[in-house]
């Protein structure tokens, strides 16, 4: 297979680039449609994460009724957890499953000979899915908020940064999920990988609880890891717990990690292709 040729990044003529853009757009639509085909399962999956979020909300309501901790009062915590919930729902239902299955069954060979870039294709699909995931999660979050006495509006000072930060959640989560999917080239098992990935993200992204509540070593580690940008940063910005220079820095870190993960994933993909071409699909 001419993997090497497919991998070579040549500058494309303008009309080719347009054609590719159209291809990716239709892939985004395909991703969304595939998700709709499994709608019942998707909604039950969403229900599952809703229960997870609900238990956290109830727990913190009860804990914080005694007064604020680590600078978080109940309304702030509620806002934090709901934003973290929506962020956590992105790229959570389709991309990695499909990748893992196709790699395991060898169908990935077909993806290799397609005249579009593998990583951009998965990115486009995930984007289509993410639109639906985000929409559903926002509805669920609003429902939960209504149940628990409303959510305070976002902090107006950091709102602009919050929007940027929220948008950056997607490439970050895509990078991690995509790479964990690629690992199947080496492990052939995905269930365990996925569980480990979810556990790591849950711990280091501050999805369950703001990172300040966690032991010192976790806070230090998460400062050097890409995960905080996947929940903690936007949630902190929304709940107004992050301001000034720290806020701008946090968003910048998100952006740098997004680019970094993208490049890292590229490297991993070419390693995977080498493995595929040497050992066969």
């Amino acid at each position: 297979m001419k993997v090497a040729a497919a991998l070579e990044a040549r500058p494309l003529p303008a009309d080719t680039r347009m054609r590719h853009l159209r291809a990716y757009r239709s892939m985004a639509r395909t991703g969304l449609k595939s998700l709709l085909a499994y709608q019942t399962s998707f909604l039950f999956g969403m229900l599952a994460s809703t229960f997870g979020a609900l238990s956290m909300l109830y727990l913190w309501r009860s804990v914080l009724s005694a007064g604020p901790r680590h600078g978080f009062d109940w309304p702030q915590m509620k806002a934090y957890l709901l934003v973290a919930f929506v962020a956590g729902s992105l790229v959570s239902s389709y991309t990695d499953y499909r990748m893992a299955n196709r790699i395991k069954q060898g169908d990935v060979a077909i993806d290799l000979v397609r005249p579009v870039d593998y990583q951009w294709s998965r990115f486009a699909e995930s984007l289509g899915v993410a639109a639906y995931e985000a929409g559903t999660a926002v509805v669920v979050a609003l429902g939960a908020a209504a149940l628990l006495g409303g959510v305070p509006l976002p902090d107006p000072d950091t709102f602009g940064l919050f929007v940027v930060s929220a948008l950056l959640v997607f490439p970050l989560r895509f990078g991690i999920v995509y790479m964990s999917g690629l690992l199947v080239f080496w492990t052939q098992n995905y269930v365990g990988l996925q569980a480990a990935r979810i556990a790591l993200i849950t711990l280091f992204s501050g999805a369950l609880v703001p990172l300040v509540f966690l032991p010192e070593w976790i806070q230090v580690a998460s400062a050097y890891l890409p995960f905080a940008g996947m929940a903690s940063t936007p949630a902190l910005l929304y709940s107004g717990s992050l301001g000034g220079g720290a806020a701008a820095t946090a968003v910048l870190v998100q952006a740098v990690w997004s680019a970094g993960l993208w490049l890292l994933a590229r490297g991993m993909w070419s390693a995977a292709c080498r493995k595929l071409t040497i050992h066969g699909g």
Partner: protein
Amino acid sequence: MRRTIRLYRRLLGAQVRATLEYEADFWIMSLSAVLVQGIGVVFLWAIFESIPEINGWRFWEVVLIYAFVVISEGLSTLFTQGAWTLAVTVNFGQLDALLMRPFPPLLQVLSSEVGFNGLGNLVLGIGLVAAAVRHVDFTWSPGRIALGVILVIAAAGVKIGLNLLTNCAAFWLRSPYSMFAFSMHTFGELARFPITIYGLGVRIAITAVLPYAFMSYFPAAAVLSDGTARLLGLLTPLVAIYCLWLGATAFRLGLSRYESSGH
């Protein structure tokens, strides 16, 4: 009966060997289980680091409730993980082979997978219990230890029964994914904390509709002889029998509408 248990063990043992065929899988699954459970503990620690008690429950008492969930899930994962295969087995017609073997189909389904990650749960759960009983303020008597053992087993029965019940939805939902059962499983995880923190609707649902509270909160209360929940906790064995009966009945009804596939 002895023969049935022996065969069940045989079937599980065969699955152990089959699973160990993929050695990398085994390590990935075990490590990820330790990771997942460990994070749960870190989280628990984070909460109690900031407050001494939740709704009158002290840290080590909540740890005991938590440990009940961890152990129930561990036992259910180790010995009856096969319930989670129902969605695929039923909807791809793979139940056919099981129905043609002279051993109860339900037991074949339950023993058709071994979840090694359950081992991680058991280790952690027992560790948590050991740590909790040293800090919880009461005296141990042989009677209380016996009660504890009975309640742990009964709690596992509750989990196994409800697991089976929710996975039997596969007969009706016709989807090869067990997302319904998974969402109910996460609902059950609400029982990791004293259920008094939840709203009334949740409390009723988790006590009476899908009584997951009987795999942790109520039996823990009974062991601690604490509060009004204690009396309900003593009913755990009955609830376990009820849940197992529900699961088996759902399976029986499901089988009668099983359509194989490719007719």
